[in-house]
């Protein structure tokens, strides 16, 4: 029987790797040994049992900067915070709306959730703080990504489906430092970096990575993914599917960037793109993204996590296929890390399913509603109540 694919990868500064599939997740150490899991363990007491949070699939997850806290949010509006020593639940709450992304603030005192109604709320991570989340900021849109910069006076970065990166001060987030505007589709991911304090990179459904100057909101650089990845469509390694009601652009050769993250150890940014069996690593030099190394992988990715100078890539489902692959930096370029890949393959299994479940494209929620409506209803934009 096929196994559930891993959809999200999160890594901590302490070397933990969280692999998320459906409603469950495993935690491994940096050698690939499972140390905690939501699934009752079959290998004895070595594995801490994590309380299974809810019935809803996990939508996003994040570690605090020091790696001592971990949080997830689920599609049924649950938010759960764990401490990472014994993996006990510190706090669980129901958010008002479904959260799409979350991030701990730099101190780890607060968790900030970003919801589909455009609002970001923050809640204390210690159990003696008020359990009611407080509104931090809001967009009139659908929030897709959130993170904090590494500046001494940090910015909170929120990205929305209407193409905007908002850079706000923190905690006085009513004070907007700048907007980063240039994307032409929803933003999926944002990556601040320790090695470029004033910069952030965003990933989008428009097939680009964009490098921003946060204090001014200036667009410094745009990287078109098609330049490096068109060959995957030409060779047939990436395939278009058919347009459907939910996904009106599925038949086009599009480059939906799933994730961008900073690789602090080698001062680079890594990105993965829906459908394309490759990982791109862009060195950051002289304030710009340089020519990337494009590393072929066996299957299209679902996410990428950064473990020191290693990259943990989860695979889109394929019967009998592997769940993850690890790449390591050999001082010059990225190559397969066979050792850790093998350890993870051996130790990590996910729940079995009847059929190989397809992971819905990011364009299904990223496309604007009116694209899905029959034509000629433009004037009918009044409230239906």
């Amino acid at each position, binding site marked *: 029987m096929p196994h559930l694919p891993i959809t999200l990868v999160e890594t901590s500064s302490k070397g933990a790797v969280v692999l998320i599939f459906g409603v469950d997740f495993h935690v491994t150490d940096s050698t690939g040994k499972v140390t905690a899991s939501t699934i009752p363990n079959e290998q004895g007491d070595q594995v801490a049992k994590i309380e299974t949070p809810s019935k809803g699939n996990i939508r996003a997850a994040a570690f605090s900067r020091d790696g001592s806290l971990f949080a997830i949010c689920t599609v049924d509006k649950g938010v759960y915070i764990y401490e990472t020593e014994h993996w006990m639940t510190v706090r669980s709450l129901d958010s008002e709306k479904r959260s799409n992304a979350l991030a701990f603030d730099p101190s780890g005192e607060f968790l900030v959730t970003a919801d589909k*109604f*455009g*609002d970001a709320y923050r809640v204390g991570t210690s159990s003696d703080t008020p359990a009611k989340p407080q*509104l931090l*900021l*809001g*967009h*009139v*849109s659908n929030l897709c990504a959130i993170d904090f910069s590494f500046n001494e006076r940090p910015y909170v970065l929120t990205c929305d489906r*209407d*193409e*905007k990166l908002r850079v*706000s*001060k923190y905690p*006085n*987030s*009513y*004070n*907007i430092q*700048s*907007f980063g*505007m*240039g*994307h*032409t589709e929803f933003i999926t991911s944002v990556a601040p970096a320790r090695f470029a304090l004033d910069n952030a990179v965003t990933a989008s459904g428009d097939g680009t990575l964009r490098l921003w100057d946060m204090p001014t*909101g200036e*667009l410094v650089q745009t990287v078109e993914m098609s330049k490096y990845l068109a060959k995957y469509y030409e060779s047939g390694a990436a395939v278009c599917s058919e347009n459907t009601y939910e996904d009106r652009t599925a038949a086009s050769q599009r480059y939906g960037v799933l994730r961008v993250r900073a690789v602090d150890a080698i001062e680079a940014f890594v990105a993965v793109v829906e459908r394309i069996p490759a990982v791109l690593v862009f060195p950051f030099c002289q304030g710009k993204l340089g020519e990337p190394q494009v590393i072929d992988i066996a299957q299209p990715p679902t996410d990428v996590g950064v473990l020191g100078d290693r990259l943990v890539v989860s695979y889109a489902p394929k019967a009998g296929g592997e769940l993850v692959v690890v790449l390591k930096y050999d001082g010059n370029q990225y190559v397969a890390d066979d050792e850790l890949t093998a350890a993870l393959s051996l130790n990590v299994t996910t729940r079995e399913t009847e059929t190989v479940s397809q992971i819905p494209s990011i364009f299904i929620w990223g496309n*604007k*509603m*009116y*694209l899905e409506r029959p034509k000629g209803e*433009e*004037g009918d*934009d*009044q*409230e*239906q109540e």
Partner: protein
Amino acid sequence: MAAEDNESAATSQQQGPKLPQKRFFRQRAHVNIFNDVPLDYPVNPDEEDWSKLYPAYFRPHTEDAQTAVCDAKRPLSPSAADEAGSDESLSKRGPAAASAATTEKVPAQVEFADIGCGYGGLLVALAPLYPNTLMVGMEIRVKLVDYLQQRIEALRGFQHGLLLKKDAEWVDVRSKLLQEIAALNQPLVGDEDELHDNGETTRLVPGHYENIAAMRINCQKYLPNFFKKGQLSKMFILFADPHFKRRKHKARIISTTMLAEYAYVMRTGGILYMITDVKDLCDWSVSHLDAFPLFERIPDEELIGDPAIPCVVNSTEEGKKVARNKGKKYLACYRRIEDPAEN
């Protein structure tokens, strides 16, 4: 309405500009701002082609973008010499003078925004008071935008025609304003000829209505696509949709999260004018504005002499409707201040 019809009929017997009629442009008052509607909006403020809205101030992007150049064919706002008897002109004193002085040096840019401008009464009233300041009315209802843009183009057309005549009379902005300040204290009577509503069609006005325009946008979503940080010196939120239901409160034009965006596009010292006839909405707005760290309430006595105030109170269609029904209007003005949390 009656006055408008007569006047436009009288002045457009020959071929010439024609004022549009409101009754052809009615649209339901409520719009769901969260709906995705295909709207034209620029990726960022530099991409917006303002020449379509202010042809006297901007060249189309393809030519010489972003500079204030006068079109030779289209006489621009009066130079000091022909400004309605210059010394008694209002623009010699008060905020108009200041803004005129600043805008002439730097490239032209919009400085006033009327959020939810409706039929544009405020813009038409303000245009001659700040003849060198670009103002934009933003409205999400497409029919109203069409109406207002046609109206502005007609008014510009009248002005153009008047400029060609040697002996055209200038409107006395100052006495007109004084009249209105006096009128502030007495409610408008039903059918009385309403000030402002039509704009001047028989006399020249400073600015010639070249400084106002209407655009269709969802302000709550795309404001920063049009304006840079600190670009606006005045923002007007007049008689907004009250959105009474509790679950619609996020859609209100003033909310904690929206105020952050308004504060972003406004410069320090800029003024936000808010007026409504709904007590509940006023209380809500005032409580949010009072709690918002980047805005500070302007005491009523400091507002005396602000030439924008009579326009805010009386010039809009909603404002007149309320006056006619002898309703009460609640005015609150706020100044954009520096962030107290920053030092």
